[in-house]
Structures are given as structure tokens and as C-alpha cells.
């Protein structure tokens, strides 16, 4: 019998280049490390960012007040461009939300282990993005105080919404999505809230987290129910990733405007949504990883996986662009062709080619394995994709409206300061929400990381056993 072989390296699987966890620690230590951002006082950097985001949120409040008091005429919209920044922002934010659900639900169903370290942040991002998104349908109404006309409720007027309108479908899709996302996120938080409750020193924190954790004690029964429920919700959330943006795309595809009226829109929008959401996850994760010293649990493996997804969804989006222009040409309709022409060569050409560079060219960087794990490159690329996706939404919405059937009504669009304030204000609100989340809730799912550690150890032990046994046989 030979000497026992040394412990096999963590990266036993030749396909896994980077480890999912950089180091192994006892559970208690790991839990404490992951709770540290919540339990320690924030640094100057956090305060500075909160200051900036709060200022932008105040700007948002001002812009909203002006919009409500004076009217939606404070925006740059006109006839024919009756939708512009408001709907662009709405579609953009909704799209961003998709990555959270994708990571937390779809990857869960597919048993992707790497999701465990990042899903909490992605879900939180989804929620704040949805809040920002939900503002715009309300704000862009001419009479926002009558928004409830869109909701199907038994009214004494005996009036229902008009169900043929995609906007009515939007209301249903978005409220469903918001509800499921909140439930999913909260359910995932429960064990960690209990951990936080148990670790917290101050009584008030214990009380708040105690209330929020709904009496979680970590019994086997709790865990069994929780896992079932979590999986079920994941199953419920998964079709929503596809359905919500499909329905958002119906707002355009169902209309008969050249440039909008296209069957390619639903998959094209879903791909774009996931693409932009992944970019936003990267934009947030990379700085958070560095600031909160999460290198141990958010490793290069995560960056690599996200970069690959970004590349794949980017290719989907690029295919969408090709299809859109191909169908514009293939339709033979002068109206469709005109809209595609003004995108490429007309007044919206600068925006279009920026979109092309950001969304098609930039993701091609990540064919390189080395660049996929370079946080700085990834972060810059993610920001560019965010910009590109916003511009994409903008030109999809505005350029067909600007130049449709009758040239007499053609007119272009220019935003006002209120439009710009609303966009930057929601970015601020989003950032503020995310910063507060980092401060008050465990940003990395503690229980799931612990579980991951156990699973990894178990599989390593198994691999060790196998290799020992194979060695013995030899």
C-alpha cells in the first residue's frame, strides 16, 4: 500500500478554473464575516455615496413635484413623440430588474452553485430597479391622480380597463413581477435575518430583525418548508423573467407604428433586459466586492460567469439588431425602411452607433478569459453596456415616433431639465436604496454560502475518497 495522496486541489473539476470560495472557514466565523458590513459602522466612502445619491433623490422629488403640479408638459414630449424619456426610463429599469430574477430563480433551478454568493445583491437590485421603473408609468400619465382607472377593480362606474390594450397587460405583468420579486427576496432573507438577530448586540436591532425573521429558529422543519417554498417561488419567478419584458415589448409591437410593429420585439426585449440587468449587477457587484472585502465569497469565478453571461446575452441582443434591420428591409414597406434608415444615417445615427459600440462591440472583449476576470475592465464594460442599453431603449421608442407615416407630422424630440432630472434622480434613488441595503441587510446570503461551503467540502471529500480509492486500486 502506498502513501495516502495529499488532499486534492479545490479545483478538481478541470472545467472550473477559479474557485467559488477562496478559503474555508468555520461556520460561525463565516457568518460573522458576512454580517460585518451590517454590524460595523459605515466608512466615509459610504457616507459620501449616500450623500450624492440622496442629493439626486431630492432632485427626483423636485422633478416629480413639478411634473405633478405643472403637468407632463414640463417634459420635452410633443406630438408625435408622445413617449420619450419617461417610457425609456421605465423599460430600462424594468430590464435591469430582470438579472436579479434570472440569477436568483433560474440559476437556482439549474443548480448553479455560484449564484449563492451574489443572488442577494442581484435581488435587491431588482427591487430597487422595479421601484424606479414603477415611478414612470405613473409620472408619464397626463392625469396621474386617475392612475387607478388602469387597475381592474369593481368600480361603481361599471367600467373595467380596456383589456385589448397592452398597457393594461403591463399593469398586471408589473404588479405580479413586483409582488413575486419582493416575496422571493424576502423569503431568501429569512434565515439570514435570523442570523443577524442572533448576532446583533443592540436590543433594537435584535427586535427589528427578530420581527422581520418571522420567528425563524432554523429547525429542520423550517428548513424543509423554506426550501420547498423557495424552490416553488423560483419556479414562479422564472416565467416572469420572460413574460414581463415580453409584455413590455408588446407596448410597442402591438402598435402599428413602423419600427415598433415587429414580432422580433419580445425575444429581443427579453435578451436586452437580461443583458442590461447583468451589466447593472456587475456595475454594483464589483465595487461592493472591493469595498466590503468580499473577495473570499465573490471570487473570480463569479466575475467569469457573469462575464460569460454578458457575452452570451450581448450576442442575443446583437442578433436582435440584425433581425430588426433585416425585417425593416425585408418588409419592403417604405415606412419601415425609412425608420431603419434614420436610425443608421438620420438624426438618431449618433445614438444608434453608440448603441452598436456599447452593446455589440464591447461584450466581444469577453471572449478573452483573461479580461473576464479583470474587475476594472469588466466594470467599465458594464457601465458602457448600461449606457448603451438606455440609448437603445431611447432610439427604439423615439425614432419611430418622430418620423412615422405622414411627413407633415414629423418632429424630433429634445429633453428638458425635468426629463434629465428624472433620469438622474432615479439613478440616485436606486443607488440610495442599494447603499442602505448594503448597510442594513446582509448583502451576501449567509446561510446559502455556508451551505455552499458544506457542499463543496462534501464533494471535495468525495473526490478525495475516489482518488484514494483509485490510488489504492493501482
Amino acid at each position, binding site marked *: 500500500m502506498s502513501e495516502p495522496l495529499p488532499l486534492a486541489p479545490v479545483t478538481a473539476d478541470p472545467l472550473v478554473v477559479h474557485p467559488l470560495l477562496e478559503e474555508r472557514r468555520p461556520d460561525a466565523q463565516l457568518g460573522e464575516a458576512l454580517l460585518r458590513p451590517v454590524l460595523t459602522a459605515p466608512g466615509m466612502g459610504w457616507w459620501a455615496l449616500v450623500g450624492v445619491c440622496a442629493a439626486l433623490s431630492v432632485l427626483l422629488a423636485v422633478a416629480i413635484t413639478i411634473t405633478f403640479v405643472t*403637468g407632463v408638459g414640463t417634459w420635452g414630449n410633443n*406630438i408625435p413623440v408622445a*413617449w420619450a424619456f419617461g417610457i425609456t426610463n421605465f423599460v430600462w429599469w424594468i430590464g435591469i430588474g430582470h438579472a436579479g430574477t434570472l440569477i436568483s430563480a433560474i440559476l437556482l433551478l439549474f443548480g448553479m452553485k455560484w449564484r449563492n454568493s451574489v443572488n442577494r445583491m442581484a435581488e435587491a437590485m431588482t427591487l430597487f430597479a422595479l421601484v424606479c421603473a414603477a415611478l414612470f408609468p405613473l409620472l408619464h400619465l397626463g392625469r396621474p391622480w386617475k392612475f387607478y382607472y388602469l387597475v381592474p377593480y369593481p368600480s361603481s362606474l361599471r*367600467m373595467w380597463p380596456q383589456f385589448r390594450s397592452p398597457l393594461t397587460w403591463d399593469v398586471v405583468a408589473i404588479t405580479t413581477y413586483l409582488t413575486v420579486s419582493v416575496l422571493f427576496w424576502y423569503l431568501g432573507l429569512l434565515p439570514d435575518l435570523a442570523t443577524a438577530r442572533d448576532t446583533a448586540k443592540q436590543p433594537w436591532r435584535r427586535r427589528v430583525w427578530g420581527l422581520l425573521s418571522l420567528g425563524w429558529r432554523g429547525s429542520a422543519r423550517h428548513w424543509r418548508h423554506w426550501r420547498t417554498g423557495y424552490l416553488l417561488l423560483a419556479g414562479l419567478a422564472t416565467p416572469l423573467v420572460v413574460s414581463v419584458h415580453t409584455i413590455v415589448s408588446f407596448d410597442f409591437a402591438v402598435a402599428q407604428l413602423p419600427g415598433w410593429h415587429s414580432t422580433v420585439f419580445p425575444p429581443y426585449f427579453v435578451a436586452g433586459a437580461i443583458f442590461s440587468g447583468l451589466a447593472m449587477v456587475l456595475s454594483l457587484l464589483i465595487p461592493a466586492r472591493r469595498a466590503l472585502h468580499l473577495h473570499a465569497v465573490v471570487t473570480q469565478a463569479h466575475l467569469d460567469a457573469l462575464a460569460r453571461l454578458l457575452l452570451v446575452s450581448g450576442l442575443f441582443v446583437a442578433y436582435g439588431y440584425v433581425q430588426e434591420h433585416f425585417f425593416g428591409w425585408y418588409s419592403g414597406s417604405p415606412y419601415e425602411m425609412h425608420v431603419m434608415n434614420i436610425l443608421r444615417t438620420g438624426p438618431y445615427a449618433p445614438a444608434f452607433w453608440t448603441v452598436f459600440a456599447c452593446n455589440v462591440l464591447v461584450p466581444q472583449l469577453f471572449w478573452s478569459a483573461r479580461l473576464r476576470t479583470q474587475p476594472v475592465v469588466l466594470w467599465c464594460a458594464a457601465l458602457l453596456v448600461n449606457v448603451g442599453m438606455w440609448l437603445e431603449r431611447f432610439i427604439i421608442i423615439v425614432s419611430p415616433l418622430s418620423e412615422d*407615416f405622414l*411627413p407633415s407630422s414629423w418632429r424630433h424630440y429634445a429633453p428638458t431639465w425635468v426629463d434629465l432630472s428624472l433620469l438622474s434622480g432615479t439613478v440616485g434613488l436606486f443607488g440610495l436604496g442599494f447603499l442602505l441595503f448594503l448597510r442594513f441587510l446582509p448583502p451576501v446570503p449567509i446561510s446559502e454560502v455556508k451551505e455552499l461551503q458544506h457542499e463543496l467540502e462534501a464533494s471535495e471529500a468525495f473526490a478525495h475518497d475516489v482518488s484514494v480509492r483509485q490510488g489504492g486500486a493501482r
Partner: protein
Amino acid sequence: MPPLTDRYSLPVLEGAEPWRSLEARQGAAPAPSPGEFPLDADAPPRGLSRRVLLELAAFGTAAAGLTGCFRAPPEKVLPYSRQPPDVTPGIPLHYATGLLLEGYTRGVLVRSQEGRPTLVQGNPSHPESLGAAGAHEQASLLGLYDPHRARAVRHRGAPTSLSQVFQMVRRRAARQDGGAGLRLLVEPTASPLWTRTFERILARFPKARVVPFSATRTGNAHEGARLAWGRPLRAMPDWGSARAVVSLDDDFLSTLTGGLRAPREFVSARMPPALNRLWVVESRLSLTGAFADERLRARPSRVPWIAQALAAELGRLLGRDALRVLGREALEPAEHRWVAGAARDLAEQGDEAFIVVGESQPAAVHALAHLLNATLHGGTVRCVDSLLVPAPDAAALPALVADIRAGVVDTLLITAWNPVYRAPTDVPLGEALGLVEDAVYCALHDDETAARVSWSVPSTHPFEAWDDGRAVDGTATVLQPLIAPLVESAVPPLELLAAFAGALATTPYERLRAQWREHAAASGGFEEEWERWLAEGVVPGTQLPVQQAAVDAASVLAAAQSLPPSGDGLELHFVTDVKVHDGRYGANPWLQELPDPVTQLTWDNAVWVSPATASRLSLVRGDRVRLELHGRSVEAPVLVVPGQADDTLTLPLGYGQRLGSPVARGVGFDAQVLRFQDAPWWASGVRLTRVEGHHGFALTQEHWHMEGRPIALQTTAARFAAQGDARLPALQAPTEHLYPPQPVPDASGHRWGMSIDLHRCTGCSACVVACQAENNIPAVGKDQVRRGREMHWLRIDRYFMGDADNPSVITQPLMCVHCEYAPCEYVCPVAATVHSDEGLNQMVYNRCVGTRYCSNNCPYKVRRFNYLEYNRGGPLDRMYRNPQVTVRSRGVMEKCTYCVQRIEAARITARMAHRAIRQGEVRTACQQACPTEAIVFGDLNQPEDPVTRLHQDPRHYALLNHLGTQPRTVHLIRLKNPSEATG
């Protein structure tokens, strides 16, 4: 909110004397037998009638200290104790009256809602209206309620009272020097009452002078008539029989300069299959030029030479050697082709052809046209006497200024609108006015003239005073007031003159009646006649006899030969603005916001340049230039307009007012600065320099090209007759649908529909204003128009086709086409836009939340959105609104309703009479206003309805038919009749 009468002491509750409404007349009111009752016995016995109000107003002005007492104190207004027989709250009454444009009257019917005038329509009985109304007549309603009207009587800037003014006037009128120091500065008018007043003043004060002043009637036509006939006649072409018309810079299709009758008769004589042919030579693209079959663009100074060449060519064709002495200047090939073609057409059509000339052309050209017309028509020309008194004379104003400077004038009464602003730049009227001891100016606004005179008096609006007037053909109309003056101290301008005519003691009403009593004397029964005149809006038997006048060929030819040669280099070209005229409508937001039919420009004027000239001078739209002429200069923005003659800078008059209404103030630039008395219409020697800056225009249509799409269709009559139009079958074909077909009503039901004949549409924009007035559509201001938020439900699209230098132009009125399968309906999430069972696409304002999805999905982009609260306004703004149409608030979508309120009104009337709605009973506002009957509305369920026949006309097509919207409004293709020689 207190009742209306508490807020405004108006004769709201008094109702109207029964004989003033058409309804009452039809409703068999017993006519009082003459002499049985004293005068006015049929007026309501107590309270203030409109008539008594005005009498008292006049009395009050005369009797010092009584001003202001004629208004009922608001707290004493009482409800009807006995309802006047005519007034049913909610049921509008219509009163016939008239409005003056350039001295002549156009008959209108004013709809009055509980005493408030709310709409101006054409008077079908009036020969110059025929039921139509132009943009200016309709928009004058807004002038009545203008919150910026002058309110205070001022003496050298300080507030004073009317009694002071009248004391001064009486003092001046009482002197015995024969009126050496008395001058009246008035606009030429055809009004019998004014004419009589001038006569009486001149009889009492033989040394006084009545000075005519008009910025747009510079005396050319008048002088031309004198040259041709030796007396002031006015040519009356027979438009109804026109087979070939040559227009020498005459914009006769514009309702402003051409009236309403000429376009109607000309277009009716043009209907297929027998089209007439219109030849136009002009310097800038006008509506008439856009309508022309053969248009020639020429610099203004070139037009007289083209007229001469035409005369020479015509002389050659007709064998009149006398004419061949003309036409000495060489013609360019394009000019030559046009002249040859026009001459041949004229010669062929003979007495069914004629030449018309615009006011801007020199007198010799007018005279020459008369001569040519006489040649064509067998020696004479159809004419009537010119009624304008005093006769237009450009030299009168400089003479007045000279008199003032010589210290001769001590009393000057000004009723002409703002002469200081409009005076030629080298006639320093403004400075001279300061030298007149008592210069009285009576006007609606505190404008440039009011600032210069010693006495300024607020004037009444034409709807607030008694007056009379005559149409171009002589038909007289008694102008009756619709409402008591909204401005307390307002005085009818004629009142200032009346004191000098020795008639201060009587009221304007009495004077008017006295004047007309003489006319009735012949037929007897004055009271009945008077009531009939008021009810019908015309005085029968006042039409002028048409004369056949021979032309003095020798003097005409002599004058034509002495015309100066055409100039070189850049030329300035002044034109009357189609919206604000010479500026007098500048205070009217409806007209300011009305897109210029050619340039689609609102709230501005601009230097029009041709594309070629613009590229030569490297100018683009919005560049600012300084124009200098003889030491005067003005800075102005440039607008590149296709169809403009090269090297011609067209400057629309009427903008850049410095004082007056804040609506007009600072809008555009003042072209008058470059207008000298010897060159009122064009001038050469201008120096153009680029200056810094860029001007943002508020254009309602920025893209002028149809992009090859079949939108506003036009073809030639010959081609259409031979083979139809290849684009039409696809636009007439039925379309398929996933949705079930719309239910078709049975024979008793209605399917409302409309047709718009592009062949009839001249683009005059009367329909736009009609729609605005009827449907409470706000004017939103320049800034909002620039942002693309104008609210007009009905717009007139204008497309250029072909060569940018001399394009073919087509205008296309477009409003909601009421699709059977409306794209707006299925995308509205709240069912705020729905289909009625009669086919109307309806807006439910209460339900609308303002997602604007409907507008996005409307392929015609005819929906309008209240981006802001556009209907905020003072109490006066509330008064002119149509109470039968909802005033929309902010955040609500709106669009053309096919005047659903009129459909419902007709339905109620019909139902009460137990009958069906009659054919033609419902007329939309746009249809009613249209001078050329291009818009027809009716019931497609009635096979005999004109609209049904037009929907089956081979020329009809559905706009964007391939989308399957199945519009209820169809357009009819326009036909052109180019000459074979040139086209």
C-alpha cells in the same frame, strides 16, 4: 361661483328684440303695423336692452358726468321674472351683421349664447360670404374679448374722462373758421354712414380734409382704374365663367385679399371634367400660386415687364398692333414660355378669360390689364363703381404730415388703425402727431399711435356698435351690435366724427336709422324693412349695377410705356401677411398661431428667400440678417421658402409691433422700417449682411417633402381622364380584418362621414379657425408650438413636390378621419376613446388619463394632447367659449369629433319634431366655413347624400388605406390643368 351676470354687467338677461334673429323671423312673429305703435314699442318694456344700452352709452358719453351710470350695479341684477320670448337658456341665437375688411363688408352670422357672441359664421344671404367665413372674420370674435383692449381715456398719457374728450371735440366743432385746422385720418371705407358723415363734415368745414390711409391699399388699383376709364371703377371679373385666368401677383384665392366669393366661383368653374386654367406670375409663393396650373416666379420689378410682354404677345395673336409697342425687355426662356402659353390661352378663351392684377403692381399694370380684358371681351370690361371714400391715395399721408409741420393742423381725428406703426418709414407721422394740439385716436389698443397723440380713446369692437357697410358688389349691410361694450369707456369711432358732422344730439342708432330711412322711403314701410335688413343681414336692392366700361387705350399704353425698367440685384418685396394683415390682427392669438398656409410659420414673420439665393448667400433657416436700405436697417431671421423668386427678399408686414397688445408686441420684425413712400411694395438696392445669432421658428410642419408616399395626391386632368391614377386603386381597395366587421345600421340609422376635395382646397385656413372657435381649442403660444404642442384639431398639411426652386404645392386639410377600425381605440387602457354606433371615434375626456398611447398609434397623428393647462384664462376667456363643447383640462387627449355637438343638436331638434335628421342638417364648423366647399359632411347611410356620392367618386381615396383603418373621411385627388405647351 357667482352667476355670470354678477360678474359682468352685460345685457345677458335682456335677450334680443325678436326681429333680430332669423329664428324669430321664421317663427311667425306678428309684424307691427307701421305707425300703430311708437318707435321701439316692441322692445322689452323694462330693463336695459342692448339698444337702450347703446343709446345710453352714447348719451352718457355726451352728457358729462353720466359715464359709468349706464351699467347696472351687479348686486341688483335679478333673474328673469318673465322670460323674454326669444331667449331659452342653452339655445343659441344667430344675428346677422357684418365685418369690415379693407373697407368692404363681409356678411356674417354671429351665434349668441345667452347674450355672449360665441361664434362667427358666414351669412348665406350675403353675396360676399355665401355662407362661408374666412379666418379673419371668425377670429375677430377673440378681438372682442381681448383682455388687453385699451380701457382708459388718456390725455397726454394721463387718465381723463370721456367728457373731457367730448368737451374738447365740441369746442373744436363749434368754431367758425371753416375747419382749416381740422383733419380726419381714416381708412377708405364703403360704409354709407361714414361716407355721409364725411360729406356733412366737409359741408360744415369746407377747409377740412379727410385723409385716407391704408398700408395695403396704396392707390395702385384706384389709379389704374382712373387711367383706364377716367373714373374710379372697380373691375368685377365674372369668376363663375372663368376658363382661363391670368393673375399678375394677385393673391385672389386668399380670403384676406380675394374675399370669399371669388375663390368659390373660381373653384366651382374648375371642377372636372372641364377644368379652367390658372396662370400666375408672382414673386413669392402664395396660395394662388400654389393653386396655379402654370406658375412663373419672377422678381417683383419683373412682373410689369411680363405683363407688357403678355400684352404684346396677345396683341400679336389678336392682331392688335397697338399692343405690340410694349414688351421691349428681353425675356428669359421660362418667362417666354409662360407668356406665350398664357397669351394663347387668353386668346383662345376670349371673353371667358381675364387678367387680374394685385394691388402691389403699379397703376399702369392695372390699367394695362383692363385694356387687355377689354380687348378680350369685345371692347369693354365688367365694372362697378368704386365705393371707397376717401379714395385711396398714397400721397395723402405725406401731405398731412407736411400740413402738420406747417402748423396748419390743430385738430386731428384718427380712426385708421395705428397709422404711426404703418406709415412709410420716411413719413415721420409719429413725430408730427406730437405737434398737433388736439389729436384724438380711437382704437382697440394702446399702441404706437396712442402713445403719440394727445387724446387716446378706447374704441368699441365692431360687435359692440351700430354701423353699416357695403360689400364689393355694393350690397349694404346694417351692422348691429351683439353685446354692450365690454370696455366701459369705449366709444364707436364714428362718434368722434359725429360731433363735427353736427349730430351730437342723436344716438348712433338713430343716426343710422335716419340714414336708412331715406333708402326705405322709396319702398315704404321703414320699420318692416329695417327689421328684415337686420334679420337677413343684407339690404336688398343696394347692389351696384354692373357696367360695361370702355378703356382709354391711348392713355393706358402711354402709362405702360413709361414704366421703369426692371431692377438688378436683391429686391425687397413687401406683402400683406395672410394672418395679421398689416398688423391689425396681431393682437389675435388665434391668427398668430394659425400656421401660414405656405410656410407653416406661427407667431413670427421672416425674410423669405429662395433656396438658390439662400445657397448663394450661404444662408440657412433661422440665420439672422441685417437688411439696409437708404440708411434704414432691420434685423430679421431668414426662412428658405421653395417657390420664391430668386434674389427676392419677401418681408411680410404687420409684425414687430413695439406697443399695443402684449400678444403682438415683439413678435417678428417690423418690415415697415424699410418701406418708403415711393416704394411701398418693392425696392432694390438693399444691402444684406449676416449677423450673429440663430432664430428659432415655431413651424407646425418641419418636413416639407412627401418622401414619395401617396399622401396628398395630385395628377393632371388630361392624364386622369385618359387613364385614371395608378395610385388610386390601392387606396380605394377594401381591406381585411381580424376583428368582426362593424355593424351597419339599418336605413333609419346614420353613418357619418366626410370628404375633403383637394381639388377644391386652396389652403386658406378658414376651417382651422372655424374648428378652433367652435370646439374651444386654445392657442398655446410660440414656445409650446415650438415644442410641437399646437392644439389645432384640423391642420392643413402642405407638401412641395418636384423642383425645389419652382415646386408644385399641395395643401391637405387633415383632422381625425374617424377610422372604422381605429388604431387608437384598441390601445387605450381605459376605454377613453371608443367607437359610436354611428361610426364616430369618440373621446371620453372624463375617462382619459393621458397615456398618449392613442396618439402614438394614430397613423395620421391628428390627436392633440393637453400637455399643460392651456385653458387657463381670465373671465373674458370664459365668455367666448362654446358652452356645448367641453373645455379640456390638462392631461387629456383630444381630437376632431366631427362636431358631435352639432349632430346631437340636430338629433334633438329632429326628435322633437318626430322626424329624421334631414340631409345637410348637420354641418361641421369646418364645412360651414370653407369658402370653396371642399369639405363635405353627411350621412353615408343615405344614398342621396352628397357625401355618399363623393365617397363613390372616382377621385376619392382613403389615406394610408393599406393600414386597414377604413377612414370615414376620404380625400379626393387634385387635378391640375397644365398647358400642353409648357407642361
